[in-house]
């Protein structure tokens, strides 16, 4: 097994951004760090700087204000990187869909790799999404070795099959 791929799958450093969440998903995301769920056992560490992060966790739907910020954070992250949309708001803007001040899910600003629904999703589902994202990190690194221009960014997304709350 490739040592780099193993390391990438085992060490996803996550950066959490609240695009305009009601804090429900934020609380569940932070709950993953508590001793009960302990996401660090998978090597995932919440990190403050986008330049260190491998994975961007987005909660809440994207509006006109947060789109620019989300894009800016995403651009500062170095390759390979993945984006995980946590909760139904970040996935498709949920009950706020077509509101005058809402643009939509996180994919309106940045390419999203893993979607996870729920309002809010359970911490188990979030952990599942982060591990799924870490697997995608490996694939992205392989692509960089043999760069292939991606024509359709929406087609290679995955949906978490975990139990959602």
């Amino acid at each position, binding site marked *: 097994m490739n*040592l*780099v791929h*193993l*390391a*990438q799958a*085992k*060490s996803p*450093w996550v950066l959490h951004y609240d695009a305009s969440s009601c804090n429900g998903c934020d609380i569940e995301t932070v709950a993953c*760090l508590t*001793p009960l769920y*302990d996401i*660090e*056992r*998978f*090597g995932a*560490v*919440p*990190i*403050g*700087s986008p*330049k*260190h992060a*491998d994975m961007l966790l987005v909660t809440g739907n994207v509006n006109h204000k947060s789109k620019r910020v989300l894009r800016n954070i995403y651009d500062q992250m*170095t*390759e*390979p990187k993945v984006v995980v949309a946590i909760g139904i708001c970040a996935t498709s803007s949920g009950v706020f869909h077509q509101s005058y001040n809402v643009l939509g899910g996180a994919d309106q600003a940045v390419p999203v790799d893993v979607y996870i629904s729920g309002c809010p999703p359970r911490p188990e589902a979030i952990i599942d999404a982060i591990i799924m994202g870490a697997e995608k990190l490996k694939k992205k*690194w392989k692509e960089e070795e043999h760069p292939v221009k991606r024509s359709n960014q929406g087609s290679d997304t995955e949906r978490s099959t975990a139990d959602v709350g």
Partner: protein
Amino acid sequence: MSWALVGIGVLGAPLLGGLLFGIDRKITARLQGRKGPPIVQPFYDVIKLLAKDSTYTNRRQVFYLYSHLLWMLVALVILLTRQDFLVFVFALTFSEVSLALAGFATKSPYSHVGSNRELLQILASEPVLVFMAFALYLATGSFLTGGVFLIDEPLLFSYPLLFLAVLLVLTILMRKSPFDISSSAHAHQEIVRGISTEFSGKYLALLEIAHWVELIIILIIVFLFWVKPWWAGVLLALGAYFLELLIDNTYARLKLGTMVRTTWAWGFGLSLVNILYFTL
């Protein structure tokens, strides 16, 4: 001291340091009632960082980061070859200053905050190490680190208070609470990411590897207090290491001023009293 042994030390120190950091994360997790990451987690992190794209804001930053690791290794070699302890302190200080300069090389205010704090940490910690050099001179008649192998009684028996002061300073050097001011390890929160905010990819990996070497240097400093028999020193070093982990998990971070006041009052006080008592 053969050069082959120095080579083994220089290559082995980062590996051993990384492993100790993994054990640190495991013990910390267990103290908090968590399962914790695997012991080889620091190696996963560094391999991943080496494979990641690296960006830098300007070339000075890269130069200073390499300089940080290089001088840390020089400090290690000085200790391994039992050379002058004062020169070792200067090499260690130069390494730390390089890190602060790497933080200052960017325009990010967060990394500037981290660098300012790093400089204050140096101000708080290095004088106690200089006191240790004086103590070494008074006990052995030479600044050479090898001198401790020539005296019969362990340095700890002559300098118990100085040892306490060094333990206080180790908290700063190991970047552990309550004195993890410039950049804390693990998942602790930080002003963005303190001094390392603007480092990425392999340059961040350089910083991590330098931390591993720094940990080994710190353990060797503790070891110097009890070199005969050697296993007593190793036990002392590991005991000090575990004590730091315990302190890290039971204390919140203190403020900058508190760190400088504590280390200057207690660190200087304890060292001076001990050295005066020894000379009288």
